[in-house]
């Protein structure tokens, strides 16, 4: 109960900071809109609806992945500024509550972008999913959590490196490969309706559980490393 209270305190603080600065949200929205518009200019989705369905899943996750990078880098930059991170290391509240709070706030930021992005995607790519559309309500949060939980952890890990903006994608992409594969295939399967996405969703769920557990358990060591 106390742990959940600490998570909420961190989450509330991160939401308040984002509300006042809009650092992450503005960057993410700009980036995702850019991807949606540029790719829609590259081919005519109305002339090739099958191709549009086949590549939209990948495009959506590429946009979200790069957008998430913006939020992930920003979320720890706030803690480094003014050396607040040292104050976090000295409080008696569990370190992993800080991690979970931050991962949840990043989940909310990226989900907010998804809410804006989804209708735009449907319009720009003239999408009419042929599979069970409601499954996207499972795939999107599971995929987003996979990105933000690892991203938040590895962003913290690369805090003390000299070029942390470069380090994060270098470390995060290989680790996230199984999740990326699962989220892209699951989304494409829902859009095309050709295959059942069930297996990919299960893989994504297993990935989320495994990596969330590892990240929470290891975060204390990361935070208190010299």
């Amino acid at each position, binding site marked *: 109960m106390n742990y959940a209270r600490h998570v909420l305190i961190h989450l509330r*603080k991160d939401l308040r*900071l984002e509300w006042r*600065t809009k650092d992450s949200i503005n960057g993410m929205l700009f980036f995702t809109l850019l991807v949606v518009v540029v790719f829609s200019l590259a081919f005519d989705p109305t002339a090739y609806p099958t191709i549009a369905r086949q590549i939209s899943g990948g495009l959506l996750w590429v946009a979200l992945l790069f957008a998430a990078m913006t939020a992930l880098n920003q979320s720890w930059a706030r803690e480094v500024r003014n050396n607040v991170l*040292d104050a976090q*290391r000295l409080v*008696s509240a569990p370190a992993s509550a800080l991690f979970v709070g931050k991962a949840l706030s990043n989940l909310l930021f990226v989900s907010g972008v998804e809410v804006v992005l989804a209708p735009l995607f449907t319009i720009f790519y003239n999408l009419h999913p042929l599979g069970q559309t409601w499954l996207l309500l499972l795939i999107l949060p599971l995929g987003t959590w996979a990105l933000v939980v690892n991203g938040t952890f590895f962003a913290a890990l690369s805090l003390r490196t000299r070029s942390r903006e470069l380090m994060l994608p270098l470390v995060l992409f290989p680790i996230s490969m199984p999740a990326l594969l699962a989220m892209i295939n699951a989304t494409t399967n829902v859009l095309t309706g050709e295959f059942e996405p069930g297996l990919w969703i299960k893989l994504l769920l297993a990935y989320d559980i495994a990596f969330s557990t590892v990240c929470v358990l290891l975060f204390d060591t990361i935070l*208190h490393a*010299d």
Partner: protein
Amino acid sequence: MSAAPLPIPAVHLDRVSRVYGNFAALRNLSFSIPTGSSVVVLGENGAGKSTLLRILAGLVSATCGKVSIFGSAPREQPRRLAYMSHETMLYDELTALENLHYFAALQPSLLTPEQALREVGLDPALPRRLGEYSQGMRQRASLARVLLTQPDLLLLDEPFSNVDVASAQHIVHLLQRYVQTAPRTLILTTHQADLARPLAHTVITLKAGQLAP
């Protein structure tokens, strides 16, 4: 008749060194600070003052040697010590009161955020964000954060840096009052020896990571 046990010192360092690559920030440092003392650490830039405080706070490990705070490792005493660096360790986008409410909620605090701010002479109702404060006000807000838990050991790294004389004197008076009301230990690093002198029971001077004679 058995002799009374010796009181545990607030701080004890036994041959402590800290090396960064080829640079030794601290070399073989040994000393004890009894509970209730106020110690001012002087030294030039790079003498090892900040490293010493960070080691005492448990933020950095000693490369070799033993550090104990009230008889235990520094990280085992998070509730008894507080550390203030020359940066504010607070969020610029929040007001001082919001910052303090946040940190007070993460640890058992003996003062309310409002009390801590009044203690350092800041108005808790001030609606401005910390980033809009003057340097002196920022420093005082930072001090209010460390006072929240009323720690037994207060570690202050350059608390007078970038503040005007009036603000610095305000901080000195506040610290004097703080250490006089209970047996509390204060360790403070500074370049401004004259300002800190009224606080000091003991003055330690570091030179190239060692105690200067």
